[in-house]
């Protein structure tokens, strides 16, 4: 060796500020980290076991790093990442509350985590209890009769719900074509409707931000399979005419689907079942405190009213005398997951629910709503609410004043907030609100944190007046500055092996 070795060092960290090379860039041929059990199994050559036609010419090149460099690489990456554990994440529609470490411990328990999903029911009674208990709790919370725990996320729950709708109508020989969704709906709703084999009919919101009941009545008809609603809706407003909406949909033979993304607002206060919903999905990763994992995993159980129980996916864990067993409903739509759903997420959620109990969950909802309303009022002069009245767990504010006065958009506000050390709110959603900034503080943030956020927004408003240009370049103090999204889409570089644009 000359003095300088080949290859690249894993980076020197400056508390998240320095770029980190990729795993592939720090790879050096021949280096290794793995250690396997000594098995004493005779070491026959792969060529003796597998016909040559099946073998790759060269093994897959992964990367070759030492354990030490792997640790440094990944730890440094983690220092370039915001998270709930580092600060507030007032991301509307996402319920980024604090996730108790206790639930992490539950999910890490080897007596749960080491169980094979195909082990017979007699050997997995503990797991079946968890599933049955969670199903019962979720039904109690939503006011429904039974649930499937298989869907792996909210969108999977939606599609499952739509297939349940379809099976229900089909069982009555009733062919229906359309599903109604409000114009404020989350994108997964229309996407799921399509995958469920239905057409989307959009119903507009009225000037109160709620479903326009008259408009709804106009689009309803015998070909409407159902409606998908969130309540509170994606503006954070409670659909006050929900009883009338339910009656109208039921009157045409349609079913009501409840998108449970916003369930955190109403726990213990009002139940989807009591509002007239037939099908409910829940995002356990929102309401029941599963951490989001940088994008997942979540879990999206679907609970249904009595008339739909027979169609649920199977198998489901059920009580069978003193034991627990698997059973598939008579007219099941079939499986919607390779196994039983995101089981460890389900166990977390059960633990979270059991710690809180009825009273605790109700307090969760109340405090989530309290925080959102306080914030709405506190910053209303700078970022007026789209609908300035009592909101639920989140409030949709607007950057319209800042835009008019200084040309500063919602995106600039969001990016500047990153410089203040807060995660940005959800921007430009719901689509029907101009310059929308949707704040969901969640119940686990303290009044002091809300106040700090409000003061940051005040500083931003001042900066908008004096330095709008700077805001359009914000953030600058983050691990990377504002990112060129257009370039990424223009020249897709999705792997380290992709040729780079010149």
């Amino acid at each position, binding site marked *: 060796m000359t003095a300088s070795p080949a290859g690249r060092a894993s980076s020197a960290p400056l508390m998240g500020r320095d770029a980190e090379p990729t*795993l592939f860039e720090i790879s050096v041929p021949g280096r290794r980290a*793995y250690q396997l*059990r000594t*098995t004493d199994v005779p070491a026959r050559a792969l060529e003796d076991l597998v016909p040559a036609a099946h073998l*790759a010419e060269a093994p*897959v090149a*992964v990367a070759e*790093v030492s*354990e030490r460099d792997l640790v440094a690489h990944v730890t440094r990456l*983690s220092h370039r990442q*915001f998270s*709930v554990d580092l600060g507030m994440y007032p*991301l509307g529609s996402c319920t980024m509350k604090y996730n108790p470490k206790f639930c992490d411990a539950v999910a*890490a328990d*080897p*007596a*749960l*985590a080491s*169980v*094979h999903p195909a*082990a017979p029911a007699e*050997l997995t009674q*503990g797991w079946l*209890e968890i599933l049955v208990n969670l199903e019962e709790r979720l039904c*109690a*919370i939503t006011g429904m009769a039974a649930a499937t725990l298989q869907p792996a996320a909210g*969108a999977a729950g939606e*599609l499952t719900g739509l*297939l349940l709708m379809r099976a229900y109508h089909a069982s009555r020989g009733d062919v229906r074509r359309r599903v109604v969704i409000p114009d404020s709906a989350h*994108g*997964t709703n*229309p996407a799921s409707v399509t995958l469920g084999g239905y057409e*989307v009919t959009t119903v507009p919101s009225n000037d109160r931000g709620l479903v326009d009941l008259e408009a709804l009545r106009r689009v309803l008809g015998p070909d409407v399979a159902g409606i998908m609603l969130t309540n509170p809706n994606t503006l954070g407003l*409670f659909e006050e005419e929900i009883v009338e909406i339910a009656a109208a949909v039921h009157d045409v033979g349609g079913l009501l689907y409840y998108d449970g993304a916003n369930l955190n607002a*109403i*726990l213990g206060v*009002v*139940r989807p079942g009591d509002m007239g919903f037939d099908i409910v999905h829940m995002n356990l990763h929102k309401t029941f405190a599963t951490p*989001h994992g940088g*994008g*997942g*995993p979540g879990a999206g159980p679907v609970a249904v009213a009595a008339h739909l129980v027979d169609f649920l996916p*199977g198998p489901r864990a059920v009580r069978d005398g003193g034991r627990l067993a698997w*059973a598939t409903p008579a007219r*099941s739509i079939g499986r*919607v*997951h*390779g196994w039983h759903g995101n089981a460890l997420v389900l166990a977390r959620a059960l633990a979270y629910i*059991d*710690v809180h*109990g*009825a009273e605790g969950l109700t307090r*969760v909802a109340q405090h989530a709503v309290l925080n959102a309303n*306080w914030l709405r*009022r506190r910053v209303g002069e700078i970022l007026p609410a789209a609908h300035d009245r009592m909101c639920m767990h989140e409030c949709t504010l607007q950057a319209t004043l800042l835009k008019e006065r200084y040309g500063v958009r919602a995106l600039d506000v969001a990016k500047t907030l*990153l410089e203040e050390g807060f995660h940005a709110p959800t921007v430009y959603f719901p689509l029907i609100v101009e310059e929308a900034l949707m704040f969901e503080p969640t119940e686990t943030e303290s*009044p002091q944190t809300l106040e700090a956020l409000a003061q940051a927004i005040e500083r931003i408003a001042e900066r908008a007046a004096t330095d709008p240009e700077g805001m359009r370049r914000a953030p600058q103090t983050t691990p*990377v500055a504002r990112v060129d999204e257009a370039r990424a889409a223009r020249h897709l570089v*999705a792997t*380290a092996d992709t040729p780079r644009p010149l």
Partner: protein
Amino acid sequence: MADYLPHTPEEVAAMLAFVGVDSLEGLYAHVPAAVRLAGGLDLPAGMTEPDAAAVVAGYGSRNGARASELVCFAGAGAYDHEVPPVVRALAGRSEFVTAYTPYQPEVAQGVLQAIFEYQTLVARLSGLPIANASLYDGATALVEALNMAHGATGRSRMLVSSGVHPHWRAVARTFAAGTGHVVDEVPLVGGLTDWSGVDTAGVAAVVVAYPNYLGVLEDPGAAKALAAATGGLLVVAGDPVAAGVLRSAGAWGADVFVGEGQPFGTALSFGGPYLGLFACSDAQVRRLPGRIVGETVDTEGRRAYVTTLRAREQDIRREKATSNVCTNQTLMAVAAAVQLGWLGTQGLREVATRCAQGAHYLYDQLAAVDGVAPVTSAPFFREFALRLRRPAREVVALMAAEGILAGVALDALGGPEDPSADAPDEVLLVAVTERRTRAELDHYVRALRGALR
């Protein structure tokens, strides 16, 4: 009762006053009284964390199949691989665990770069140029592949080998009710898909598992020929560990690779959260389901990562989206990237090789046991199916008493109400991973001999 609320009563009172209502209930004044819940939720009383921990410990103790009790020979798509403390420690860092989807790339480079590395690894494993940021699991990844094939061809007929895991086929059937796809299952003969005599009209996708769920090494070339002949896409559903040494899906001519990523860094977890692997050819990239991370630069010209091609996604494209997937399995993808980083090129090859060695060693011993007959003589990789003298479920129960989870009774795979035509009750599926020692394999042989006596 416990909760995680910071608010003191005084703070609540002051906040309520500022908001202009006089009680927490008052926040809901506009909720119609008719639907408001009267007596509170019907739930067991809340309890403190340590009390809840005791309840959880009870659940755990009633899982007879936990690893401390039974040595695992069950597979069927979920495998007992080594997950070292270093991988658990790194993937468990709270910055990854408690982050949201990286919608603000300036403060999410950690997750974004980890996904980018994951995508690179999945692409390399599959022999295809593009991989996404994860899907729910292998089964739903297959569904997305079928949807992609539909989008690519405009056709709806899916030729799915019966060597594809029964649950995956079941999931495909379920979702076909919505998409209107026709899922045609092609039978196995002697453990291998019998493509002969298949009607080739209007085929959108040809799906072959490699190895198939009986552990057998199918010939993806035959499936490729069929796909090529009909203009459909070839979808290879692969075991990602085997993919470390087998000819890649891409090399076999696949347009799409799907797989269950659990073997890379995710515990058995009673079936989830797992990890849906998805890779495809360049031609299909605009139809890619789910999220994808791309490399770009920031305003200072520094390398940066960002979720890209967002116009495919549901939050922008709505009913025209390529998929409805929003929340995916990112944390498992991060774990997979870390686990693969730990294994490295050599380790991955070693694990795959040891699985094959162990499986063949055990197979050779078991083939000599009285009352055991191989289901097929086709070459297999790390898993194989045996026909036993007595029902496989009984054998599993008997061997549990010997400290062994003997495998998966084929007829149990679909649940009792979902028997697969090709799942007679005496067939046992046995999987071997790199963690199984020769002593364990030999014990298995003795125990099975005993169970069949």
